[in-house]
């Protein structure tokens, strides 16, 4: 059975037996892939899966309309699986609420619970192939002087229209009242001038330090072509170097920005 047929069969089975009230998957729309939220087993033949499926469907788990339908099943490749493990570790998924239709590299691993998903990730997908081009660009940015780097990011952020497609696309952005939505007081200017766009983009990147699974959904969603993955990868490199931390492999992991260890380096305190 092909991967897609297996996904369709499991999706239909879960919906028929009531083990899932909703399946979050991908469909074809005008030659591109788009998310579909399927409630009826009869529609399972609309489901597709290939390398073009770039939306991170774990983002839908913050939507009240979806949470009301728990338990749900999510079609997930390794980055989406890592996001689901991260969300569970951050207490965002009630026990038993999510079944993972786990798609690996050229392989379908079946309908798994989150513990089995985390185990699969540790055993088979613990070392994702590095994106050499992205790492080259990270080194380029790292080699810049502070002034050059500030100028580089200012230029990149100047294209931002503050539509927040990056935030919407990201499963890690589940704050009901994101700091950029808080307007009493207005923490981050909503103008598209540099003070607002810089503050928003840097705050977003910081808040995902050690939480970002590098799925690429934010950059794919950005209508202005901002190099958000470059920013994420710069942060991820610091996290790896300073804390040896990776996210999305352990249901018990502590979120990096929400935890503190006595042995953490405090050399930056001046």
């Amino acid at each position: 059975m092909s991967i897609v047929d297996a996904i369709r069969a499991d999706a239909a089975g879960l919906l028929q037996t009531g083990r899932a009230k909703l399946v979050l998957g991908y469909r074809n729309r005008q030659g591109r892939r788009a998310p579909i939220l399927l409630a009826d087993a009869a529609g399972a033949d609309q489901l597709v899966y290939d390398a073009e499926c770039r939306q991170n469907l774990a983002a839908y788990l913050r939507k009240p309309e979806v949470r009301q339908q728990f338990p749900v099943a999510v079609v997930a490749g390794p980055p989406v699986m890592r996001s689901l493990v991260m969300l569970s570790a951050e207490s965002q998924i009630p026990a038993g609420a999510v079944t993972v239709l786990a798609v690996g590299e050229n392989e379908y691993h079946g309908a798994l619970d989150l513990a089995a998903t985390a185990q699969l990730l540790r055993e088979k997908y613990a070392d994702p192939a590095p994106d050499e081009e992205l790492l080259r660009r990270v080194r380029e940015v790292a080699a810049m002087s502070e002034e050059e780097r500030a100028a580089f990011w200012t230029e990149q952020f100047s294209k931002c229209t503050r539509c927040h497609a990056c935030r919407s696309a990201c499963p890690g952005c589940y704050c009901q009242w994101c700091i950029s939505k808080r307007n009493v007081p207005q923490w981050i200017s909503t103008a598209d001038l540099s003070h607002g766009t810089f503050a928003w983009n840097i705050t977003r990147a910081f808040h995902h330090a050690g939480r970002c699974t590098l799925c690429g959904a934010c950059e794919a969603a950005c209508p202005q072509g901002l190099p958000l993955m470059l920013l994420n990868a710069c942060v991820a490199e610091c996290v790896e170097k300073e804390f040896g931390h990776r996210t999305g492999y352990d249901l018990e992991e502590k979120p990096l920005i929400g935890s503190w260890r006595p042995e953490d380096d405090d050399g930056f305190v001046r």
Partner: protein
Amino acid sequence: MKLLRADRLAELAAALAARGYRVIAPIRQGRIVRLAEWRPGAAIETAGISANSVKDFLFPRSEIIDRYSLNGGDFVQKEVTPEAIKTVALAVRPCDAGSVSVLDTVFNWDSNDAFYNARREACTVVSLACVRADEHCFCTSVGGSPGSSEGADAVLRAAGGGEQLIFEPLTPKGRALAEAAGGALAEGEAAADPVAEIPLRFDIKAVRDWLAGNFESPLWQEFASACLGCGACAYACPSCHCFDMQDESNRKESVRYRNWDSCGLALFTLHTSGHNPRSTQTARWRQRVMHKLSYIPQRFNLTACMGCGRCSRLCPNGLAISETCEKIARLCKANHEGGTP
């Protein structure tokens, strides 16, 4: 008639820039073609549709509409005049030009918006008729057409199999532009190429009738199910015009900004009390469709969706007004054929 070679649009831009116009044209910036200020040496890309629209230059993403000084406890209003540079929007799409009529109407409906009007007055719109369209284009379904001159001061039409462009001035502003172009436009004769064929996707009348009676339809939940609630569609839309005002202050000065806002964002309708009348994304997506295809048509006899397809081209989650309309139209047809109202 006035002609220019299709590969010499940049020369027309240069001639107009030399006569004091700020030239806005579709220019490639990385992986995206945007309407942006033309600079000498920049190529003008006319093959597709730009990611942004003319709206950006008439009603910018952010603008300062007031300033106050707070010296010594006194609160003094300083005059802010709109920055209206003489501009030509060159080789924009007919759907873009058409959207200007919608903006003209909404910015002059109950009061006259001095900031919008100053920019609008200073702007000459030159559209380029479409000889190609993609699968997201649906202007013909919402009353537009790929050769429409609605809202334009002049139209460029491809001729001679794309070799040449006919420059057709339509208004005094368009004629002034032709004069300013000087030698960049030559006299000659040519026959316009056929415009793109854009199939009719839905019956807009049936959709409007359905919308008028189905605010509470459970189908909205299905239509909006994939929406994750960003403002990307509204910000790319040539006719979306909602805004928010924000005062940014320090101890000496307060600046009042007008910034774009979107009905897709939860904060848009949040009351001070904490109550949100559009509490779900379903309600917010419904508002987007209703505003464009029901409320504005009822109030102004205009359609506020131009069928440019920008929203559906960029929506990361595959939402499209055209798809929602197609579903509604199919439903109406099925109901009609099935004999139920």
